[in-house]
C-alpha cells in the first residue's frame, strides 16, 4: 500500500485531502502533520511515496522542507505535490521547481487530486 504524507497547518485542508484520498478506489495509508517540523520528523523516520505539501507553514516553510528532503537527505523517490493558494507565485525560475512533481492550486476538485496522484504513481511524473 502506498504511503502518503500531508503537511498543512490548516486542519480543514488536511481533513479535505484525507477524505478525498479515502474516497479513492485505490487504498492509501495516510499520515498528516500540522507543521513543517512534525512533517520533517515523519519524513526522516518513515518512508513515504508521496507528500502533499502546503508552502506557507509556520517556522519551517514548504521551500525549506523541499531543500532538506531533496538536497540534503536526497529522497529522490519521494514525489512532492505542492498545494498552493498562490497560483502564479511559482515559476520554472525558482530553484526548487524541478524538485516538485506537481503544483495544485486551491480550491481544488477531488478529481484533480486523484488524477494527479494516480498519474504520478503510475508514470513517475
Amino acid at each position: 500500500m502506498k504511503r502518503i504524507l500531508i503537511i498543512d497547518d490548516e486542519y480543514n485542508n488536511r481533513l479535505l485531502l484525507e477524505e478525498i484520498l479515502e474516497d479513492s478506489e485505490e487504498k492509501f495509508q495516510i499520515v498528516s502533520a500540522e507543521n513543517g517540523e512534525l512533517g520533517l520528523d515523519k519524513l526522516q523516520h518513515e518512508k513515504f511515496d508521496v507528500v502533499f505539501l502546503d508552502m506557507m507553514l509556520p517556522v519551517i516553510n514548504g521551500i525549506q522542507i523541499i531543500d532538506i528532503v531533496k538536497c540534503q537527505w536526497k529522497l529522490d523517490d519521494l514525489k512532492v505535490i505542492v498545494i498552493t493558494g498562490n497560483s502564479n507565485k511559482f515559476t520554472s525560475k525558482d530553484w526548487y521547481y524541478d524538485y516538485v512533481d506537481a503544483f495544485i492550486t486551491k480550491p481544488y476538485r477531488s478529481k484533480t487530486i486523484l488524477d494527479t496522484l494516480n498519474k504520478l504513481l503510475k508514470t513517475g511524473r
Partner: protein
Amino acid sequence: MKNYFKTCLKQHFIYNTLNCAVSLCRKKPKEASELLIDLSDCLHYTSDNNSDLVSLKEEIDFVCSYLYVQSIRFSPRIELNCDTGNMISCNIARFLIYRYVDDILENVLKNTNDNITFKISVNPKEQKAVVEVFLNGKYKYIKEFS
C-alpha cells in the same frame, strides 16, 4: 479599485478560505455558509473604495469578519472575542485596525506555533476602540484606535 482590492486581501487568503469552505461543506455545511458570508463581507469592504474614512463600526465589523475567517481556517490556533455592543459613532481611516491586527497575525502564523487571541472592544466614554492581543493566553499587545 482593482489594485486597491489586490493590496488589501491577499490572494492566498481568499483561495485558502475557499478551500476551507469546500472542506467544511462535506460535514459542517452551516459553518461553511457562515465562512463564505464572512469572506463575502470582507470582499465587499475591500472592493468598496469610495472613501478613505469609514465609520468605526464598518472597520470593526470588517476586522471581526476577517479574524473570524482566520479563526476557522487556523482553528484552534486563533480565537476571537469581539465585544462591540456599545459602538461609538466616530470615523477612522479605512484599514487602520485591519493592518495592525494583520501584521501581528501574519508574524505569529509565519514565525511561531503560538496560539493567538484577539479581544476587540469599544470604550464609548473615551470614544476609542481597543484591540488586545494574547499569545498562548498571556497578554502581549494593546492598541487604542480613535
